[in-house]
């Protein structure tokens, strides 16, 4: 009994220290001036000055801050200015921060329906399931949850090994935290794949020629239209080798597309 109390106290201290350090290290920054800028940009939008609104949202991004609603509003501004490609690009970025937002889902579906190619990508059952799972929470949240579950798993296992008589009541707790940890990792992995490995991009010009080779004189294989989402397979001297949703591969000029998750890559 005495030992159990000692262990519980030990466990609580460990958790408190971990959460305390975490809170200090990863506290989110709220800046009053950014909020003012955001409100000003919203005012421009409401007054129908979409160009000014777009510039104001971009200025906040240039200032080094980002948020889901910021990308969402910027995408709305681009849409109103006729930039379908950039609108979809910024909706995609907003989805990263607020994947469950219904307005965002509606807008992104609406804009995708306006894209000329109308290609519906095929997905396997497992990929679809993982996609659905990962679209429930934002990237940072699922990262934090995974880390917390990992920490809990380590601490519980550590306490179990330390205890002289191997406290049996810890076993179900360890098993449960292991299950949750695996689920969190499964949720996180499609996002990591999508953001780090897949390298998604959106076409931002009305029409682009996709060629057989990275050269202006090369034969055009097919045309790709504004708003189409593609994967960057490789890059070479200002050209990008892309794969479309229907698995066609060709070269386009680098300036016709923009990556969705630029923050992760050193381009």
């Amino acid at each position: 009994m005495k030992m159990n109390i000692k262990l519980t106290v030990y466990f609580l201290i460990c958790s408190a220290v971990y959460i305390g350090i975490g809170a200090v290290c990863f506290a989110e920054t709220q800046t009053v001036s950014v909020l003012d800028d955001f409100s000003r940009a919203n005012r421009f939008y409401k007054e129908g000055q979409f160009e000014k609104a777009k510039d104001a949202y971009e200025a906040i991004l240039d200032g080094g801050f980002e948020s889901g609603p910021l990308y969402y509003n910027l995408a709305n501004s681009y849409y109103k200015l006729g930039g379908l490609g950039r609108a979809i690009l910024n909706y995609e970025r907003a989805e990263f921060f607020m994947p469950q937002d219904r307005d965002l889902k509606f807008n992104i579906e609406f804009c995708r329906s306006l894209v000329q190619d109308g290609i519906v990508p095929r997905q396997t059952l497992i990929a679809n399931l993982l996609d659905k799972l990962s679209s429930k929470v934002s990237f940072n949240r699922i990262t934090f949850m995974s880390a917390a579950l990992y920490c809990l798993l380590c601490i519980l296992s550590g306490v179990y090994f330390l205890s002289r008589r191997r406290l049996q009541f810890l076993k179900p707790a360890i098993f449960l935290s292991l299950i949750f940890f695996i689920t969190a990792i499964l949720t996180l992995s499609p996002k990591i794949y999508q953001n780090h490995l897949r390298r998604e991009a959106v076409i931002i010009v009305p029409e682009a020629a996709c060629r057989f080779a990275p050269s202006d004189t090369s034969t055009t294989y097919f045309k790709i239209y504004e708003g189409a989402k593609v994967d960057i397979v490789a890059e070479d001297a200002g050209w990008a080798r892309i794969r479309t949703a229907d698995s066609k591969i060709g070269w386009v000029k680098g300036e016709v597309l923009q990556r969705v998750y630029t923050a992760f890559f050193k381009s």
Partner: protein
Amino acid sequence: MRRFLILFLFSACILESPCCLWAKDAVMGISVDKKVVEVGDAIQLSLSFDNGQKVPALDLPAINSFKSQYLGPSTMMSIINGQVSSSITHRYLLVAVKTGTFKVGPLAISYKGIDYKSEAIEIQVVSRGQLSKSSPGNSVQPQAQAQTEEELKERIFLAISVPDTRVYLNERVPVTVKLYVNQLEVRDIQYPEILGTGFMQDGFVNPRQSRQYRDNVSGILYDIIEFNTYAYFTRDGEIALGPAKLKCNLLIRESQRRRGRGIDDLFSHDFFDDSFFSDMFGRSRIYPLDLTSAQLAINVSSLPEDGRPQQFSGAIGSFKMQVEAEPRELKAGDPITLTFKIAGDGNFDSVNCPRLDSEEGFKAYQPQARTEDGVKIFEQVIMPESEKITEIPKIKFAYFNPQIEKYILIEEGPFPIRVAAQAEDKSVVLDASQIKQILPQKTQVLGRDIIYIKEEAGAWQKKGDFLHLRTGFLIFQLLPLSFLFISLAVGKRRERLSADVHYARKLRAPKIARAGLARAKRYLKNNKTKEFYDVIFKTLQEYLGHRFSRASAGITAQVVDELIESKNLDAQTADKLKNCFLNCDTARYAVSQDSMQTMQKTLAQLEEIIDNLERRKRK
């Protein structure tokens, strides 16, 4: 009667006779596969006879500057709408022997009393190498590309056509885009795109379902693919239709060998030159083509005001109307469903629901429309308001027929009905499904736009500052892992200590030794000889007992020999050990007062023994 029979038999003989064919087309078609040829190359001349499957091959007259050879006939029979037609084509090989422009024909043959005549065809023969420089069969050089494309225009081109260039506003105008290909391999043909403003167009019919055939154009035989659609002109005046644009790929052989059809080529045909092998070994390449047709000037007229019926609501084409009214026997206030079926050929978008001649005595609801397989169907619910109504008035539908350029008014009805009086005290109870059937559904067209901006800024974060990319976060993840490993190590050690007594005693031996040595030093300092040697002896006993897993109390000077032997201790350590035991025994059991120096020496010996044995353990 007899005279009639003779007349009938005579007519039958006349009709059965092949001579009746002269009443049909007795033209002999003449075509060549190309009109420009190099000296020594061959062209294929085809003479075709429609409705004359048995016409024999014609002996070609000597044609200046060509050597001819008969290749053989090919026959074709087709059944279109139950009508059987047949044709025969005789093919000849003409080999050019000198340069210049030459005429072949006109040719003529008489068979079974029918005279077949062809037109003349002009062929240009150029010197060798002149064509092959820009032939698409060679690899395409950039400087020769323009010339190649110019020449290609004659071998592959696009044409747009309409039956009549004078049309009416909103008239359904069939538009045909034809792709002409002569002796070329074309792949990946895309749907054409018709450019221009002032008209709308339907989608193209799948070319696989439309016509693909061969035709002779200016003496050259072309493979033709037709793309059919309909256009509707939305403003009057002169409107440019087209140009039509089409994208396709031309398959070009990479082989540098000349691809002419000279006699030499025909006889030295390489088996591996076959397109199958060429494709298989990658000796062909794709050459993308953007074909553009000419524009068509369409003169669009407004519908005439003269003779326009009152009931006309914009329908253009040629239509028939069928009207059904159900039920015909009912009570006042009960619904009658009128079904109007408008069938025919024309712009169905311009067809509106026909109207009752008079709606007096009826309550009429908005009609609902749908289109099914070339029939536009309207359903309208009307209710007779009193039992005095005896018929549904005439229903009139007016349309403009652009073929005859006149308005046509079609009438149906009147339809007699029997309306009974509605019982006053009886109220009709309709359930929701009945009401839904009776009352027309108002379809609301929903607007489409994006959802408004967000007022709340959400959680801000520094751009690109993602948790998993922070070094601190990643290092922080090592803490729980370290804790886990330390716990695991401690747990394992503890487990071993409790399970393995020898290991535990061995670990305790140095501690015991250190404690004993400390006490001995204290006694030495206070010059307590007996206590000093007691502690030294006990420390030595306990250390050796733990170190070598023996009972401590049983270790005496006599046991040491056995220990030295079993543990292979070196001679120096063994001597010191024996000496130490001996000193202790002497001091403890013989009454003597050893000097401080002797005691210090014994202590030093003990320290050395323990040190040596610990070092040996580590080794």
